[in-house]
């Protein structure tokens, strides 16, 4: 559970997760509901809500976990439509594509990237202080929902 909690904290998010419902299978973490908790057996492949996985000591959150973090104080940026699609295609976010910043905005911080509908399309790391209006790359793409398409091609 620690990698999940650490990641949530890193984005200053507040997500209430009942730890008793979290189950780990090898390097992957899942959140069950009460019904699934009663039914779950050994050697499952996937269960409930996939939260993410650890690999090489790093935690890679699922897109569902990112979506769970939207509410509240989590660091987040809202981007315009063009930036949304570029980000989904794996590109970084330029300062001029950011319409709104919520939470910490300093260099090195992580933030959820939201589209104009408030939906999370991934997350990234700030390469500069977002309070400044400088041109250029502001957020390095760490993970985006275009990954679903890239997985199909692997």
């Amino acid at each position: 559970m620690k990698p999940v909690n650490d990641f949530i904290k890193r984005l200053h998010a507040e997500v209430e997760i009942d730890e008793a419902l979290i189950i780990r299978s090898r390097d992957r973490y899942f959140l069950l509901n009460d019904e699934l908790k009663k039914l779950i057996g050994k050697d499952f492949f996937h269960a409930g809500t996939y939260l993410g996985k650890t690999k090489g000591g790093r935690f890679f959150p699922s897109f569902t976990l990112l979506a769970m973090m939207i509410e509240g104080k989590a660091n987040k940026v809202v981007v315009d439509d063009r930036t949304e699609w570029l980000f989904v295609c794996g590109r970084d976010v330029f300062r001029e594509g950011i319409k709104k910043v919520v939470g910490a905005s300093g260099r090195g911080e992580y933030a959820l990237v939201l589209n104009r509908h408030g939906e999370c399309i991934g997350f990234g790391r700030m390469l500069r202080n977002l309070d400044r209006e400088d041109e250029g790359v502001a957020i390095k793409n760490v993970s985006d929902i275009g990954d679903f398409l890239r997985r199909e091609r692997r």
Partner: protein
Amino acid sequence: MSGQQFFTDRYSQLGWTYENVKLKQAIRVNAMNAQVAETVKRLASRGVGLEKIPFLERGYWANARFSVGATAEYLLGLYSIQEAAAQIPATLFTNPKGKTVLDACAAPGGKTAQLADLMQNTGAIVALDVERRRLTALANQLERCRVKNTIVYDLDAREASRLNVKFDGILLDAPCSGNFATDRKWFSRRTIKDVEENARGQREILAEAAEVLKDDGEIVYSTCSLEPEEDELNIDWAVRSLGLKTEKVNCLGIEASTNVFGKELDRSVENARRIWPGQTQGFFICKLTRRSATT
């Protein structure tokens, strides 16, 4: 025994004249993640032409000059790409919300995600399939569609009783021979031997499904095969051998035939629905329940 003439002659005997079809792409809005009207509006603004499919609550024909599988809305799980006839089986369960449902042959997970949607992510779905590649596709689909109520096992449906769970509902979208509407080379690839082999496998899964079904549970059996060995003849066998009975369903399709190539089947097989290729691909659907001691 194979080839286009062989198979189309069989279809004629079943009352359908072969015609080539061009399928329209269909999508299904995931109501657990999206407002239907809002999603339709967003897709329209991207240049996706949508037409409501009259026989489906959340299905639309989609027409676009780009892949509708490459929009942010798709990647966010607001809708799924799912052939129109394939959207029917999951809708035939009676009040699935909060229940325990088995998806016996689940990958790649389009119907699993639809079931979760119909169950509003409540209750539990146990989804089975084999092969890591298929299971990975299933897990990706569940993550994309934000499904929260499903456990996936790497388990052959013929061994479902190993789970020691009895199910309120069982979706048995059986591995089948497919049909020419979704496979241009179907007639040159398939022989009657394949069809018979698939039919045997389907009976084994049906038998296991009957084992793990609660007394008041429901099985929805479906295939995308046009071959009666995998459809009417299997249902006739299930009714005669597994203590199951068919239930009337209200969905697209015509009554299944009770006389197949001169063989008289149980009359109740007519409750099943056969969909010949046309506005959708070919499909076969039957709802089964356990026959009580008095019926």
